[in-house]
């Protein structure tokens, strides 16, 4: 970040702190081992990556997953969206120094983690997907009550928290009108997911190109036109409520049948998978060369598409607003949390660390509170 005094005048983005060589590793594993690997691209989106990859391989092989598998994929994907958005809301509020709401949001995330443990056996990294279907069934008669009870508790809690977000003067002062991404800029920078929907662009892979069981259960996408951090927050909070309804509908409509499709010998072919990750459109490309090891596997995660849009969002804002603006696109923080602040006139780094930035952001909250 380049600054003049407090104002941000330019932003340069450097990524690569979390580079692990996943595509290289993936081209050295069999197609059935790769879901375990791509699950570990990101622990928060650990369902959407393998789902996306499996869809790419299924397209290349010309296989359709069975109906029940599509519903199970949908349920786990929506539970993941709930946990991811609640996690994000907590972290964002932590960045502006509102730790009590941070704890509240994470309090309602915990029951979802327990649901994951019940349904998939692990709190994170659910290992549900495999090429051609899913590995694990959901025992609906046995677990339905527990799932519905938890979802109701979370839904009620999130609606209450949404009310608190809307009325709180501190939240308003720090989020409304901050880090605005206009509709034109959003289009120009090709943003995806909640970042786009917060700027009035109604795109969502679940609706535009339905996969899994979304065409049957239906999705109502939430769009806000303001483009500021508040709009992006409300998009996510309302998506939590929508996701809860999707899981409820999918559980009730779940068809019977097998969990996996029969797979043919790997052909010489290629396929693209697209899913709506909690952060936006996720794309996996797989090229098969007739063996069980893919010739090429390319991943385009949603944060990568959203990061450049930080430039128009940050320009003209103060340094103290930078953490919440950067947080508002919900970056996988591990790749982007190191930045340096540079004086635009002298070109010298000011030596402001991320911790100091968060501290400045929280000090601004206290200033706002005092003057209110």
């Amino acid at each position, binding site marked *: 970040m380049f600054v003049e005094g407090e104002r941000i005048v330019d932003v340069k983005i450097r990524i*690569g*702190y*979390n*580079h*692990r*060589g*996943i595509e*290289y*590793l993936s081209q*050295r594993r069999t197609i059935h081992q790769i879901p*375990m*690997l791509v699950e*570990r*691209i*990101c*622990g*928060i989106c*650990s369902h959407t990556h393998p789902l996306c990859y499996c869809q790419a391989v299924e397209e290349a092989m010309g296989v359709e997953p069975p109906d029940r598998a599509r519903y199970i994929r949908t349920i786990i994907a929506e539970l993941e969206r709930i946990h991811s958005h609640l*996690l994000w809301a*907590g972290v964002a509020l932590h960045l502006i120094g509102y730790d009590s709401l941070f*704890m509240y949001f*994470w*309090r309602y*995330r*915990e029951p979802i*983690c327990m649901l994951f443990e019940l349904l998939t056996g692990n*709190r*994170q*990294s659910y290992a549900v997907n495999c090429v051609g279907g899913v590995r694990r069934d959901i025992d609906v008669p046995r677990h339905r009550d527990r799932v519905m009870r938890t979802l109701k508790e979370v839904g009620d809690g999130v609606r209450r928290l949404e009310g608190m977000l809307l009325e709180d003067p501190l939240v308003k002062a720090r989020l409304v009108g901050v880090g605005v991404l206009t509709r034109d800029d959003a289009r120009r920078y090709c943003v995806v997911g909640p970042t786009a929907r917060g700027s009035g662009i109604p795109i969502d892979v679940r609706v535009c190109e339905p996969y899994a069981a979304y065409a049957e259960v239906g999705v109502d996408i939430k769009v806000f036109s303001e483009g500021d951090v508040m709009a992006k927050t409300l998009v996510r909070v309302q998506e939590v409520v929508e996701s809860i309804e999707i899981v409820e509908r999918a559980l009730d409509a779940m068809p019977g049948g097998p969990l996996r499709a029969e797979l043919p010998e790997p052909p010489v072919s290629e396929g693209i998978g697209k899913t709506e990750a909690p952060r936006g459109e996720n794309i996996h490309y797989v090229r098969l060369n007739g063996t069980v090891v893919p010739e090429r596997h390319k991943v385009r995660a949603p944060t990568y598409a959203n990061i450049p849009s930080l430039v128009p969002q940050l320009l003209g804002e103060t340094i103290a607003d930078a953490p919440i603006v950067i947080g508002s696109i919900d970056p*996988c*923080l*591990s790749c982007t*949390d190191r930045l340096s602040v540079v004086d635009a006139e002298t070109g010298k780094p000011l030596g402001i660390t991320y*911790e100091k930035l*968060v*501290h400045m952001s929280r000090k601004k909250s206290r200033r706002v509170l005092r003057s209110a």
Partner: protein
Amino acid sequence: MVNVGRWSLKKSPWLFHFNSGSCNNCDIELIDALTPRYDVERFGILLQGSPRHADILVVTGMVNHQTAPRLKRIYEQMPNPKAVIALGTCATSGGIFADSYHIAGPVDRIIPVDVYVPGCPPRPEAIIEGVIKALAKL
């Protein structure tokens, strides 16, 4: 005479968390341990923003070539006595990334490690137990 400094450390360990190329799984489980269900802050375990104020360094991830020198520098910035926890399978052994071209770790190849907490990710209970074991080393 009781060494007051050492005694006070055991009462309230401050943690510094460093992500050296992790998938976020271990990181969110670590934060989870701080939030209402597990709430380790009631024992005085606090996540700290600066390595200079911390007693225990918690490292997650497989340590890639870009983060390895930074991990070393953070370790050197921490005051003695200090302990290091390698959190998660990647930090303890490299895990699924062990044969990547960009791996410089696992953690014990860069800095000395006191406690290994395996798991992908480890449960918050396991993380808390790891912190207790690290306290015994301090």
